């Protein structure tokens, strides 16, 4: 279904299009005159624009204003009876077709059908293109695909991770990364500094699961990035090698944490960990911080100390080990409290908020108008 804006000051013309062009897969929207149309273009970009106005001066005025918007959408001009030179002038100004009304019904229908049949973007990307994420920021990629009104799937690779961002005529409509919610998946992928991307154009009308427009998505991603950077900055001694504590009881640790903590067994810095295994999830950076605070991850000196302590215990006889355990239970300072993790992550309420849909209302001018109308009503 092609979306077409009918710009005309008369609703009857719009009605004529709707009745005469019944059956063609085109949806018409009457946007009113050019003043109103300018507002409408800010909200939505159609596939076609029909200008229908009898007065030629007005037609040229509207076309000049339309050109200023730099939308590059194909448009058709509908005039009253027009001489050849007048038509030529409109063709030169970029009109796909100029049609004088009234026209023969059948002829009119055939002309419109043929024009609308042509593909929307003839200069669109038809082939695959690829690149490295270190050279192009994801937001810039989205912006350029939006400008080109591209339809297709942008696939991002980061280590073992693979995510997709799906575009419908330049608008981001869906994102996939493991089992994460579409918006969160997009926000996570926006944090990827390394890896590669590839874009494959298609002509499928993808189902929209992200209902925000691209501008709102940028804002959400920016907010997320600030939080993520804050969480990364809060990690102490990022450049120093950490080890998993040998005293850690692996059964007390959650399955996902177990996977990540295993990477630290041979020693790894938090920065390298985020580079190599980071998926961009805010909680991952927060957890790293919590693990260090709780003593699950420790520095080299503490690691050596704990290893020595363990070896000493191993060398002792069985009975003395049991005595040591029983009588030193209260004094044992090296033990790890597994409840601590919950406390530290619970402090940050923002991470919970991430899973809720954001509030994006901005039309306060309408609320003011409503309140003013209601006040007048009271009087």
């Amino acid at each position, binding site marked *: 279904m092609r979306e077409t804006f009918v710009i005309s000051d008369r609703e009857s013309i719009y009605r004529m299009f709707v009745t005469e062009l019944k059956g063609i897969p085109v949806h018409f929207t009457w*946007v*009113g005159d050019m003043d*109103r149309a300018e507002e409408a273009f800010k909200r939505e970009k159609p596939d076609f624009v029909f200008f229908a106005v009898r007065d030629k001066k007005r037609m040229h005025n509207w076309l000049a204003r339309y050109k200023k918007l730099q939308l590059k959408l194909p448009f058709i001009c509908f005039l009253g009876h027009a001489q050849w030179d007048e038509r030529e002038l409109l063709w030169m100004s970029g009109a796909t077709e100029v049609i004088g009304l009234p026209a023969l019904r059948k002829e009119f229908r055939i002309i419109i059908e043929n024009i609308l049949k042509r593909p929307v973007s003839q200069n669109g990307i038809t082939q695959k293109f690829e690149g490295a994420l270190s050279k192009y920021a994801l937001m810039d990629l989205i912006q350029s695909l939006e400008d080109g009104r591209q339809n297709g799937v942008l696939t991002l690779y980061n280590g073992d991770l693979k995510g997709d961002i799906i575009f419908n005529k330049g608008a981001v409509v869906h994102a996939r990364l493991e089992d994460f919610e579409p918006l969160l998946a997009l926000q996570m992928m926006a944090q990827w500094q390394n890896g590669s991307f590839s874009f494959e154009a298609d002509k499928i009308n993808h189902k929209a699961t992200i*209902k*925000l427009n691209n501008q709102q998505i940028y804002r959400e991603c920016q907010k997320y990035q600030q939080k993520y950077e804050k969480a990364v900055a809060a990690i102490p001694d990022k450049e120093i090698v950490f080890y998993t504590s040998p005293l850690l009881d692996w059964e007390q640790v959650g399955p996902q944490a177990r996977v990540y903590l295993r990477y630290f067994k041979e020693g790894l810095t938090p920065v390298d960990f985020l580079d190599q295994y980071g998926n961009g999830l805010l909680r991952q950076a927060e957890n790293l911080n919590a693990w260090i605070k709780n003593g699950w991850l420790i520095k080299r000196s503490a690691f050596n100390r704990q290893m020595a302590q363990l070896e000493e215990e191993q060398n002792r006889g069985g009975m003395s080990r049991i005595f040591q355990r029983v009588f030193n239970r209260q004094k044992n300072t090296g033990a790890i409290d597994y409840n601590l993790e919950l406390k530290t992550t619970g402090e940050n309420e923002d991470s919970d*908020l991430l*899973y*809720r*849909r*954001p*509030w*994006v*209302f901005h*039309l*306060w001018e*309408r*609320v003011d*108008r*409503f*309140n003013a*109308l*209601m*006040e007048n009503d009271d009087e």
Partner: protein
Amino acid sequence: MNDILEIPVFADSQSWEAWFRECSGTDQAQSYHAFKHITWPVGPDLDIYFYLVDHFNEHTVKEALSAIIPCAPCILFCGNHLYSREARPLNNMYRFYLSHFRTPVVWLTPEEFLEEKEIHADGQTEEPDYVPLTELSGRALKKAIPQALELIKQKIQKD
């Protein structure tokens, strides 16, 4: 083409539909799968659309309103028994809502029920904003809705 303000409304009984219709000066409500749609033509170029949810179903609410709720100025929760035990279905809706959306909520409830307010520890972390209704009628709603919007606006300016 009129400007529109869309306000989803969660109500604890079907009677609210009649009061919202009275408030909007219309006797029509379009029925959809998950909600009822009432149009209130406020001015020559401004309409308010109410989306009334009086039968709670997580899936349909998410499917039908998840695009509208983030773009709404606020969400109205209408209950005859605010916080009390009789209001369990509405409280369930509220808890579901809080865990999925961030659009601010205003409660509309009759004045006399404000006194029997009872805050449960489960799931409610803060006292929500509410606007008392002088009576259960369309007239009272007509006064309360601008107050609710004003409340949210002031809260934002304060933040």
